[in-house]
């Protein structure tokens, strides 16, 4: 039973990351591979504030999201000028830079050793320390993020985003400042990812730089691409499949090290197969 709760929690957290990424990649057409960096910033800020400063988890989470928002604002000012392949290259670069900071800013992040002993959330005497209560908490947050994303994409703002995705020059001619739209959705997406990151840190109770590297960014991208770019149900379905699928390997009996590599292998293979045969994903409406 604990195991099922564990998988359900992982699924919820990756659904949050995937919905967040889909806002940028699926709805706006900007393939970003730096979302692990954003949820990393959220995770580190939340973890450090709770653990070393003793702040309440939810307050720390909020600060983590704000800080991520500020980083996304600065980055977005640069990235909003790029598109297509160059956008991928730029965001790829940021993933490595963020990883470098996590691993080298030892006085704050504790470097490669990571941050152990992160407490579970607590509010008004209510503790989310066991699995089922944490599952309820993450389910609530998935609901909030989903509703927020639904609101964003069905608003007039969301329609402009889709127009940017289809033809940025055309919508710019109508007087929309496309870079402002791209910047804003980038910040919203990064902050949602940071929300999931804070939860992840608290759930795992231990984080290290490896949790937020390029492999994880690609993992989240695989989820969105499998589920379908430009649909909100897509990333949720994608997260369900890609969180559960590698678990099957556990029962086949591979050693943990090999199983971890097999996991990566599956994501990579899925990316290739989806691009080759169904680039719009299972439920997507945006065909790359």
């Amino acid at each position, binding site marked *: 039973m604990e195991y099922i709760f564990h998988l359900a929690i992982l699924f919820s957290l990756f659904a949050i990351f995937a919905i967040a990424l889909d806002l940028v990649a699926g709805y706006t057409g900007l*393939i970003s591979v730096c979302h692990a960096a954003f949820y990393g910033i959220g995770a580190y800020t939340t973890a450090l504030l709770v653990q070393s400063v003793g702040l309440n988890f939810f307050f720390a989470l909020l600060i983590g999201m704000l800080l991520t928002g500020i980083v996304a604002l600065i980055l977005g000012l*640069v990235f909003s*000028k*790029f598109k*297509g*392949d*160059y956008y*991928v*290259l*730029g965001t*790829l*670069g*940021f993933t*490595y*830079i963020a*990883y*470098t*900071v996590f*691993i*080298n800013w030892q006085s704050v992040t504790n470097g490669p050793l990571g941050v152990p002993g992160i407490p579970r959330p607590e509010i008004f005497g209510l503790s989310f320390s066991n699995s089922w209560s944490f599952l309820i908490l993450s389910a609530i947050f998935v609901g909030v993020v989903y509703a927020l994303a639904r609101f964003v994409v069905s608003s007039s703002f969301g329609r402009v985003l889709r127009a940017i995705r289809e033809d940025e020059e055309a919508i710019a001619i109508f007087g929309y400042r496309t870079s402002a739209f791209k910047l804003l959705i980038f910040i919203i997406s990064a902050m949602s990812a940071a929300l999931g990151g804070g939860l992840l840190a608290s759930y795992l109770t231990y984080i290290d730089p490896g949790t937020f590297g*390029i*492999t994880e960014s*690609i993992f989240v*991208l*695989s989820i969105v*691409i499998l589920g379908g770019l430009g649909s909100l149900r897509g990333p949720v379905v994608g997260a369900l499949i890609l969180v559960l699928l590698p678990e099957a390997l556990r029962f086949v009996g591979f050693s943990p*090290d*090999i199983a971890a*590599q*097999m996991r*990566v*292998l599956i*994501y*990579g*293979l*899925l*990316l*290739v197969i989806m*691009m*080759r045969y169904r*680039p719009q994903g299972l439920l997507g409406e945006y065909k*790359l």
Partner: protein
Amino acid sequence: MDILPQIILNSLIAGSLYALAAMSFNLIYGVSRSFNLAHGVFATVAAYAVLFLAFHTAIPLPLTITLGILMAVLLGYLLERSIFRPLRLRKASNLVLLIASLGASIVVEALIAIFFSSQFQTLSSLLPPFGTLHILGGTLTDLQAFIIICSVVVLGVFWLVLSYTRFGKAVRAVSDDEEVAKIVGINTNAIIGIVFMIGAGVMGLAGILAGFDTGLEPHMGFILLLGAAIAAVVGGVGNVYGAFLGAFILGFAENFGVFFVSGEWKYAIAFGVLILFLLFRPQGILGKK
């Protein structure tokens, strides 16, 4: 500044490896018009092929290295036939090609990690101990001197082939405009296939040299690819000579940057260079438009 000559030499060594990677990257980009993020695996596969053959068979070293490069060439052919060509024929967008190549890259990387472990391994024990050369107050090993020579030789060969052979003219025609090249009777798919194999071979050479100079780990090719992609953008995407120039600019920026801050910030410096160029000169130094 008695350390200055050494920094310059280090920049040249790093630049030469990037140059091999970036020239082959840009050669392929020129004809296929898409970022091939699987370019790094050619280096990784070649280096691991040498590792495997040298430690598990009795094949002499020069033949091992040749076979390693041939493995990369073969992989280049396979990837082009199984992934890139079908997608090109379907007129898939650049992003589809890019994501597919990223997927292919992590698949090969994971396979290598499964068969050879993700541990850092070295090839240097296969060679006699490196001699050192002293130049203008700095030192480099004879292998490192060989790396620098390799990059210049490959540049020269690319220049000769691209300028003076029928094949080179065809490559340039495809790079200029694939449709027009097809109309005048060039078998563009064959040209692109051969270019993939040549590019993969040169990248394989870079991987083997890097394996002898420092060592191997499954992610090595991807790191080399990132350097190549940055050098390509700096020099001008799709331009082989630009790649050579961009690679040395990157090598110098990294090594002088590392001298002023510290070694751990190498990625940050490299991507800082990339972002500066993307913002202020996206076509690169030798790029057109």
